[in-house]
């Protein structure tokens, strides 16, 4: 790792860096004598972790952090977890009335309620993960300033909490789909899973990117709220992609398709909505390749996020 190699010698990193190697030979270590590099086996630089890999190593802590967030979230409210249904249902009703009924999309898009809801839960997962992930470092300032932990834990756990919140919504959607004659093929299920993978990867990457900037510049979280506001409208959640194609020039359509969320939403449409229609809808061409490309972009975002996070991480504790 070139990021941590800034010293004149290298340090052997054992797999579990925080434990001493067993059976290490006892050596003399005078206080005043200069420390030879051979004496430094088994030493680590505190606070230099392996990034996301460390999150995986500390997965027990990760599960506890996620469980804590899930438990605490609606504590003290009478409706409790019902609140996580109230928001998407309200959102759905508002959009359905405005766009489906008043603007008559209900007439032109078959099974519009299913189309709308499968898009909405996609974008809600993304929005919640991204917005909470961006704030996660500031929210956990007390911990970050006192104890060293792999700090990537916080954006990752925020995303997982958003995912836990998403699951009951997906279940509601699945039940509704079954009622209107959903019989998904294996490919449909794969499409849904790929869609989820894109969103989770993309959200973790963006959360690390904006979250680490947010430590020093709280402008980031306001900027993220703006992105989220726009996100609902720049992917085919409320309307169909063909409506965009008919108006936008080709180069702008490329940009539109480069957004990984466009692919994620279309994958959800393919999995949930398309099997409930009579197949007359035009789906984007080459959807599998399109989906995999979007996953690639999300993965690149994750790498960029990790890179920026590590560059800024050394200042977290003092800037928070």
């Amino acid at each position: 790792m070139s990021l941590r190699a800034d010293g004149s010698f290298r340090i052997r990193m054992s797999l579990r860096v925080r434990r001493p190697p067993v059976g290490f030979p006892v050596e003399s270590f005078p206080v005043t004598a200069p420390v030879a590099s051979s004496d430094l086996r088994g030493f680590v630089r505190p606070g230099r972790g392996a990034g996301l890999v460390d999150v995986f190593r500390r997965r027990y802590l990760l599960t506890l952090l996620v469980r804590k967030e899930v438990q605490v979230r609606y504590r003290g409210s009478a409706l409790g977890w019902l609140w996580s249904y109230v928001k998407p249902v309200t959102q759905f009703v508002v959009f359905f009335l405005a766009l489906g009924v008043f603007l008559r999309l209900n007439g032109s898009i078959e099974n519009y309620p299913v189309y709308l809801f499968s898009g909405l839960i996609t974008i809600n997962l993304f929005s919640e993960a991204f917005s909470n992930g961006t704030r996660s470092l500031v929210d956990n300032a007390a911990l970050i300033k006192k104890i060293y932990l792999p700090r990537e834990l916080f954006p990752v756990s925020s995303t997982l909490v958003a995912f836990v919140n998403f699951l009951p919504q997906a279940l509601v959607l699945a039940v509704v789909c079954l009622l209107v004659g959903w019989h998904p093929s294996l490919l449909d299920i794969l499409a849904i899973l790929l869609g989820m993978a894109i969103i989770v990867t993309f959200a973790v990457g963006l959360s690390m990117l904006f979250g680490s900037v947010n430590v020093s510049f709280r402008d980031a979280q306001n900027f993220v709220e703006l992105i989220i506001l726009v996100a609902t409208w720049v992917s085919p959640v409320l309307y169909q992609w063909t409506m965009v194609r008919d108006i936008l020039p080709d180069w702008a359509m490329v940009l539109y398709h480069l957004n990984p969320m466009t692919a994620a939403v279309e994958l959800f449409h393919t999995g949930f909505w398309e099997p409930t229609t009579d197949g007359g809808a035009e789906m984007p061409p080459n959807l599998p390749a399109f989906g995999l490309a979007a996953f690639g972009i999300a993965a690149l975002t994750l790498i960029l996020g990790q890179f920026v996070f590590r560059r800024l991480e050394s200042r977290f504790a003092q800037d928070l």
Partner: protein
Amino acid sequence: MPKTSEAAGARAAIVVRGVGKRFLLRHTHSLKETFIAAIRRKTIASTFEALDGVDFTINAGESVALLGFNGSGKSTLLKLISGVYQPDRGEVLTRGRVAGLIEVGAGFHPDLSGRENIYLNAAILGMNQKEIDDRFDEIVAFSEIEKFIDTEVKHYSSGMFLRLAFSVAIHTEVDILLGDEILSVGDEPFQRKCLEKIRELSQRGKTLVVVSHDLNMVADLCERGILIRQGKVAFDGESHEAVRIMREQ
């Protein structure tokens, strides 16, 4: 000189070499303020040298008190050893598992029960599920709050809270234990019990680095004292001697 330099064959646990830490103090907090300050030719930011060229080695099993007045840089040093801060110059190296009790109860959540908080906090301090399961009863017994273990922590008195937090911290499986004012917890009997526990850990070969303003207590607890003055090591040696020099300042 500290005892450790005599003991041939001792293994270093913490190496601090030429460590410098500088803090940037921003005097402006927005673009507008920065702009105005720049026009008026006021300083936008200044730096503060918290540590400047600190060198020492602590061997495994040693107990060391970091001494110094407020703002001398001892807490910064402790945070560098725990990995919370990164040095600007020099390097800090540690060997073995480090647990920083920089502040007891930092990872506690008021809405969770005592039981849930034990698991969460012990995991934050680096323990895995099995280790926590094994020590759970011991942790509860030490804190003496068995009756309230399933009550939410927000209903605890401050004393009960500190007892539980300290108990978790002291029972973590570590090689190097760092503590900042950790010994000022609870009432006198509990403090005495904590001290005994820390002595016991020290005797079992754990490395101990503590910061406290209770000079007599840390001098008795630790064999070695490192006096920090204005970010530099002013004295490094026997702890009572270090306290004496500090008081003469």
